[in-house]
């Protein structure tokens, strides 16, 4: 299975899971920003995407070029089975470790999320 996923790697994989097969760099970045509220650097995103692709967790193909991209083509990304497994493992690790200590995180002390 290889090593465990990093935090941002999880975020990116989850974004891909949400977006389905129609994900490209722009839509992934927008999804992450919309959900987390943090500005995300395109450069960091691609570094991570490349690393995930190298590990076989995701795959991509070159798409069409459009005028608003100045005629440049885009990459379309897809979550592979391996990636789904890695996410599942991360989730398992997280949920098994969090069990019993939720109270310590003092989630209720935080303002409710919309």
């Amino acid at each position, binding site marked *: 299975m290889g*090593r465990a996923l*990093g*935090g*941002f*790697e999880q*975020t990116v994989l989850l974004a891909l899971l949400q977006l389905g097969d129609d994900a*490209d*760099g*722009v839509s992934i*970045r927008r999804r*992450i920003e919309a959900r*987390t509220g*943090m*500005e*995300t*650097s*395109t*450069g*960091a995103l*691609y*570094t*991570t995407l*490349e*690393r995930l692709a190298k590990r076989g967790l995701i795959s991509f193909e070159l798409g069409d*070029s*459009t005028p*608003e*991209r*100045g005629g*440049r*083509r*885009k*990459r379309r990304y897809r979550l592979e089975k391996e990636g789904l497994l890695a996410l599942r493992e991360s989730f398992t690790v997280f949920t098994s470790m969090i069990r019993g200590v939720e109270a310590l995180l003092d989630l209720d002390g935080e303002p409710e999320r919309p």
Partner: protein
Amino acid sequence: MNPPRPPILPRILLALLLRREEREVISGDLEEEFQALVSQSGGGSAARAWYRRQAWKAVGGRTVERFRRVAGSGGASTERGDPGPSGVAGPDGAGGGTMTMVRELLRDVRFGVRTFRRQPGFAAVAALTLALGVGATTAVFSIVDGVVLRPLAYPHADRIMQVWSGHPLSKSTLASIRDRVSAFETVSGYQGARFALTGEGPAAEIVGAAVAPGYFDVIGVRPARGRAFSPEESKPGHDGVAILSHAMWVGRFGSAPDVVGRSIRVDGSARTVVGIMPAGYRSLDPAWQIWVPQTVDPTNFSDWKGTAGTRVIARMAPEATAEQADAELAPIAQELHEANADAFDDAFVAAGTVTPLQQATVGSFSRTLWILFGAVSFVLLIACANVANLLLARGESRSQELAVRRSIGATAGRLIRQLLAEGMLLAVAGGGLGCGLAWLAIWTFREHVPTALPLGDRVALNGSVLGFAVATSLLTVALFALWPAVRALRPDLREALQSAGHRGGRRSGERRVNRILMAFEVALSLVLLTGAGLLIKSSWLLQHVDPGFRVDHLLTMRVSLPGGRYEDEATRVSYFRDIEERVGAIPGVVGVGSMSHLPLTSGYMSTLFTVVGRPPREGEARSYAMVQSAMPGLGETLGTRLLHGRFLEASDREDAPRVTVINRALATRAFGNDDPLGKKIELFGWFEATVVGVVKDVRDAGLDRVAPPEAILAYPQLSGFSSMYVVVRTKGDPGALRQPVVAAISELDRDVPITRVTTMEDFLRSSISDSRLTTAVFTLFAAVALLLSMVGVYGVLSYTVSERTYEIGVRVAMGAGRGTVVREIIRESVAPVGLGVVVGWGAAMALSRVMASLLFEVHPRDPVVLGTVTLGLVLAAAAAVVIPARRAASVDPVRCLDG
């Protein structure tokens, strides 16, 4: 209309620094989001800031990643943790590879510092050479950035167009553009003007503009206090309003909150202040302090159709394109051409119709700036070539060291990184010094030049200029350090190890590279020298053009009569008669004259003229003449040459028959070979005057322009001009009479502002200051280029000699003559210098078209210039060659073989 583009520098960085396969997707993503942001936020600046931030992060992150991959090959795994510098999650943990890399980098830098401290001379020469290149290039870039690249600070400035830039139009043409062109959302126009401001403190002359309705809509900036002009206020009689600049409000009215609504006296008549522009607003001409409505009166033929002085600007409609505007303007262009083929010639009809406002404001300067930028890039290339030569020679002497280190196990990547770190050190030192030089140059520019250059006040050492300096420094590292580094690693280990101990000369490949670089430097210098030579000749010719009058011993100044009392013609005329009398009485004054248009300046007034009794034939082009209104005595004072008839005289009074003195251009245009004396011409459609004299052409429109047809009228008979230039001819130094003359005039009436007091010689010099400045800067670049390249030639040959000392010693000991040795060294330089000259000629020829636009009456392939420049270059090269050659000849065989 161009869509907004992301900022240029980040785009260049992305293109340069990203790997090819990721460049397309990443810049594509950024572009797409940029466009989305532009259409969301409406303004380009937020989108540009976002793009800049993202580009920096992308370039930074990706470059570190790549470097780590290269550096860490064989080392610890790099696949650990997040990229770090910018990811939202932040680094999950610093990778071991990163730490190793940083440690190695620091070690390389320390090692580099030690190496340079051992050879301080080498390090200093290399860093200074780079500093010169980077500094000069950055300084010129800052001007290009401020003037050409940075968009005007108006909302959607890229949609503001100037219509037929360079061609002032009549008010009727403005109206028909407004009615007929649907590609424009708003159309307006302006006419720069000077106003006399009286009351409220001392009389002052202020500059501003009369603006057509909708002007502030086109610009997109409205007054911060009060309001813009209403369309009603362009009707004659309703135009008694004004808008002030923020600086004027603060400076003259002490930021009084009640200024809006107050009445001020402009040109003697009352105007109500209706608005004050925002503090940050920068008008098209930064000197503008006041805006008044331009009056429109279609019933006044001369004002409506006959006078062309309005510059038309327009804001494009949201979906419209420049092509659409061109197509809609084409029939209007044709009509203008048919009405007046003189002013609107075939070139006018063929040329494009709309120009982005910024481009139109900067005009031909942008071309000059790009040419200077090209020239300074050559200087930078020469500097790089020099440093590459130095490093190459040094790499050669270090090849043993490197070979030894490789043989005991250092990897090639390790050594390349070390050499790159050394190059980087040089670049940092050179780039830092260069930024200092650039700062100095920009400071000097800001102190002395900015007003001579449109938008020159925006030149500054800002973020993008610094970014450019950094990028240039990095680029120079790639050019001068990487290549010698790679070469230094190539040597066959055995050969390098064996050559330890004695120095028998280099492989031929090394020498070939040295010579190619030498030829390259010579070629670039020759191109720059040719450019400088052409400009110097052109500038010299321009300074020796016969202006048509005697420029020496003349003092000039401008007096602007406020309205009120001076609205009366007789008062105006007697005011100038009084000036003549009073100033004429000052000891040392030989003659006094007054005129409405100072020679050597563009922006004169011109009008239609016809020969009375000879109506224009069907289809005949109508003719325009420049109008000069002058007090009698002007001709004698200026020293114009009278060809026929007489000058204007004191007897040409208000009630006397109307007369005119015409210049030769007008005489030829109107009368051909006939005698014009006694014939009548009609001006403005109503003013008939009898020709009483013909004078030699005066260069009225500028030293570099052929004189337009010109009619000089007597001021008493045409005294509509409220501001006039007074010219005083003096016996001695005209500057010395400045004070008494100004005092005598202001004693007449303290409410009349006297401005632009200058000697005619100074004025003539300033009228060609652009050409002189370009020439001076270009010549400076050429001189630096020559110096650098000669240092390069000298360096290469010196190195050759020192390297061949042993061989020369042996040959001299064996009986070779010293002459033979000297000849041999010289011969070594002949081929590269010769090649450089030939290539330089070719390049100069190829670039001659570019230069042509800057030249006055000099052919860009002028053989005299080319010959002189080549000779000078060859002589300089000879000097650079002879010194090392003599050293070769003085090699002492005994000492050399002993050692």
